[in-house]
């Protein structure tokens, strides 16, 4: 056994890429978990192929998982790769461009057959010509190695072949000095009923690990120490999952049953799946016949006193517009999660984008204002979902949450919140008083009307989508009343400004450039700003979690900077609002590629400006 170096480094970005059938997502999940356990900070980014499983070996069938782990605070899955694992020629073709010069490239040589090479569009075998000269190439015949390693075992060759992702995992564990035990424990639990799979995968894992240890070609191990985390109990959390938990927490806090009405759509379906497991929490999930029935059933349940939620993505949100308008005019609480994906139309269903802000803001007929919140990180999805429920219930209004495919599927280490620390959600239903019940009487401060739930004697009343008379709630065509109601609905939403905490500024509170963002661009912007500041640039960051209304202090903050830059994964939406509202000549960064921003794209733009 040769002596190996151990090199200490701060952060590493790796990507696993292979065929959809090769278990890349699983490999990513395990590496993420193990890295969390050793205390790294983390950011992940799964990148699924287009919806249908393409033929094995095709470019369209490549699935990838990217992960950054670090001994310091990080905010994204990283940009350029330190290491790439490519399980076949197609994966290599698709992803090699992102590997750093000099980066580690591990390929499964067994898959570089003539057929596979052709399918991936390689004219000649890159392992045999000089295409990969710029990288530290390790071409390993994983399949053959595994076949050898399992000769003594009574398992099919198919099972052996399927375990090859664990070989890769083992090798990387060795390379980055991570323990293999947690993964073995996990295999034991996962395949309780299929011991042959425990054995095969454990063997593959160990074979990979030992391969690194023994083989001469691997000269260096890298060590990425634990990150300086706040003390506490942590888990790794994926955005959609966090959102689902946030809804459940809000139900618990408010004491209301949770009703979810929805229709499956990528990338929102996971929320339906998750909540459908929570029957023992009393959660009612209703898989409706379509998008409209999804939100319709939620509105019905809301009328009946449940905490009601619907979730979808772009095309589905379009379809729900009319019904959300009904919730606006009938002033019923409703949370609408829009897990944005690339559009227009069906667009690119698995790709991320932020282009539905104005759809949420304006996608209904008439003046139909709603509050809009947006999470900045996967873990933040929990708090934003919770806050959306609180606002919906307090103000009797639909609330939009704008997440996206990047947040939905990405993950980060998350300090597990204590339920008791969350702001309690107080709900009171209307009670019978003297005189007829007046459904459109309002709380003076919040302007919310009361919630009078069917089944309560004496509160019989009627609501609906025709304009309502102030206080009585009767149908009214009176011009003055309409003008008043249009104003009241607007004021109710505008008044939520009091719910918004002061805007945090990262960096100096005044200076040359402020980068203003919202939603999932948070990490890329933060990373860029950190590095720009390290270079001595006068750049700060402010990030919005409320898009409607905008925070009270925003105008004044913007004026403290010479220039305001607004990066969005759309053609410029928030920027239109900011320019209109504050009449400042903000600059947009608008790269719409179905991908999250890279730090470098932001830095480049800043350097162009400053």
């Amino acid at each position, binding site marked *: 056994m040769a002596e190996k170096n151990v090199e200490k480094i701060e952060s590493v970005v790796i990507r696993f890429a292979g065929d959809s059938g090769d278990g890349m997502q699983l490999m990513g999940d395990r590496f993420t978990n193990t890295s969390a356990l050793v205390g790294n900070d983390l950011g992940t980014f799964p990148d699924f192929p287009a919806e249908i499983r393409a033929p094995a070996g095709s470019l369209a069938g490549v699935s990838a998982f990217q992960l950054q782990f670090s001994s310091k605070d990080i905010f994204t899955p990283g940009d350029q790769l330190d290491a790439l694992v490519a399980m076949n020629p197609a994966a290599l073709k698709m992803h090699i461009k992102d590997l750093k010069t000099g980066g580690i490239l591990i390929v499964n040589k067994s898959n570089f057959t003539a057929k596979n090479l052709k399918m991936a569009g390689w004219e000649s075998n890159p392992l045999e010509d000089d295409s990969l000269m710029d990288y530290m190439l390790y071409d390993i015949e994983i399949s053959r190695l595994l076949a050898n390693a399992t000769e003594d075992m009574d398992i099919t060759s198919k099972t052996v072949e399927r375990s090859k992702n664990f070989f890769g995992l083992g090798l990387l564990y060795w390379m980055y000095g991570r323990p293999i035990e947690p993964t073995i424990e996990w295999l034991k639990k996962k395949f309780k009923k299929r011991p042959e799979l425990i054995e095969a995968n454990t063997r593959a894992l160990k074979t990979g690990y030992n391969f690194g240890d023994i083989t001469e070609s691997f000269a260096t191990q890298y060590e990425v120490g634990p990150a300086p985390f706040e003390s506490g109990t942590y888990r790794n959390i994926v955005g959609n999952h966090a959102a689902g938990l946030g809804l459940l927490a809000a139900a618990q806090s408010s004491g209301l049953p949770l009703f979810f009405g929805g229709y499956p759509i990528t990338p929102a379906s996971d929320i339906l799946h998750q909540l459908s497991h929570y029957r023992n929490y009393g959660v009612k999930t209703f898989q409706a016949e379509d998008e409209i029935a999804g939100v*319709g059933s939620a509105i019905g349940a809301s009328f009946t006193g449940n905490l009601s939620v619907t979730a979808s993505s772009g095309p589905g949100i379009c379809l729900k517009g009319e019904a959300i308008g009904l919730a606006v005019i009938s002033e019923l609480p409703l949370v609408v999660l829009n897990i944005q994906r690339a559009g227009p139309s069906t667009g690119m269903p698995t790709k991320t984008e932020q282009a539905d802000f104005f759809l949420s803001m304006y996608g209904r007929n008439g003046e139909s204002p709603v509050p809009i919140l947006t999470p900045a990180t996967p873990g933040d999805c929990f708090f934003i979902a919770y806050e959306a429920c609180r606002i919906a219930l307090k103000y009797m209004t639909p609330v939009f949450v704008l997440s996206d495919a990047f947040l939905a599927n990405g993950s980060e280490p998350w300090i597990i919140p204590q339920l008791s620390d969350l702001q309690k959600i107080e709900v009171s239903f209307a009670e019978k008083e003297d005189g007829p019940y007046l459904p459109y009487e309002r709380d003076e401060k919040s302007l919310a009307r009361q919630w009078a739930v069917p089944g309560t004697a004496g509160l019989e009343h009627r609501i*609906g989508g025709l304009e309502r008379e102030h206080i009585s709630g009767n149908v009214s065509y009176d011009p003055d009343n309409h003008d008043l109601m249009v104003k009241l609905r607007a004021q109710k939403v505008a008044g939520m400004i009091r719910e918004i905490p002061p805007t945090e500024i990262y960096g100096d509170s005044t200076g040359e450039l402020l980068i203003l963002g919202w939603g999932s661009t948070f990490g890329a912007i933060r990373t860029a700003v950190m590095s720009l500041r390290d270079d001595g640039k006068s750049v700060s960051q402010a990030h919005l979690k409320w898009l409607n209304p905008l925070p009270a202090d925003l105008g004044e903050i913007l004026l403290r900077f010479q220039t305001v830059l607004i990066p969005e994964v759309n053609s410029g939406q928030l920027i239109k609002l900011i320019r209109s509202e504050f009449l400042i000549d903000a600059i947009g960064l608008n790269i719409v590629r179905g991908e999250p921003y890279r730090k470098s794209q932001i830095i480049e733009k800043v350097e162009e400006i400053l």
Partner: protein
Amino acid sequence: MTDTSAATPLSRKDFVSDQDVRWCPGCGDYSILAQTQKTMPDLGVPKEKFVFVAGIGCSSRFPYYMNAFGFHTIHGRAPAIATGVKIANPDLSVWVITGDGDALSIGGNHLIHVLRRNVDINIVMFNNQIYGLTKGQYSPTSEFGKKTKSSPFGSLDRPFNPPSVALGAQSTFVARTIDSHTHHLQEMLKRVHEHKGTSFLEVYQNCNIFNDGAFAHLKDREVKDDNVLELKHGEPMIFGKEKNKGIRLNGFNPEMVKIGTGISADDLLVHDENNRNLAGLLANFTEDDSLPTPLGVIYSEDQPRYEELMIEQIEEAKKKLGEGDLQKLLAGTDTWEVA
């Protein structure tokens, strides 16, 4: 919905709201409203447990006139919204009031799906074979060739037959009545209430402004008895002014026969509410001019209710998995400590 704890007995007036009724004078909707207000007190349900959900249309204004919880929603979506109401609180008596346009045009999808799910809601569809509220376009139940505002040369659409649509969608209860047959209407409202599961009641309703007389042949004293077949479970299918006509099966096909001419009541079809194949035949009657229009309960079947199954599933899950512990759930399975 069988809570009968209401203290003082309710009367018709308890269900009259303070809103002015705004249908055209002479509209069939008035009678349906009156019969509903008359019937509700007899159902043994406390007033506050009634919820009326409607879409958009003349008919869909109904909830405003009932002193109950009411939701006048958007066009065609009432079955979906009512499904949410019922799942949220299975203890309510939930009624959907809708029109032929609201239910079968824009709302067709929600209608067929609520029927198959068998959520225990009561759907009363006012069929005037026209879009009343938008001033007289043909509807999906208008007869082929109808001349209306939007079909000056005659419509080209073959109409739906509402009971067929309902049966095709796995409906567990299908019935039909007429606005002006007040007692029959009341009886059907009761049956609708009693049925556990989604009930579908078609009410032929006269729109005297845009489609006057559409059901004259079922209403006019002179002819109605010859055109109406009142269905009674377990009884032979006899009708006619002189009770001398009957329905007999010929192969798969029903035919009208005269009783007396070598044919007695024993030769006739006997109505069986619970036979789905028979229900299919009955639904098709209105497409054959030689057959009378069946009124009454065409089909009724007992099936589990969606919202009850949901409750059961929740209870079983709680039994099996214990009441959920959210703090534990938040932690998930893989956690680590940072000191």
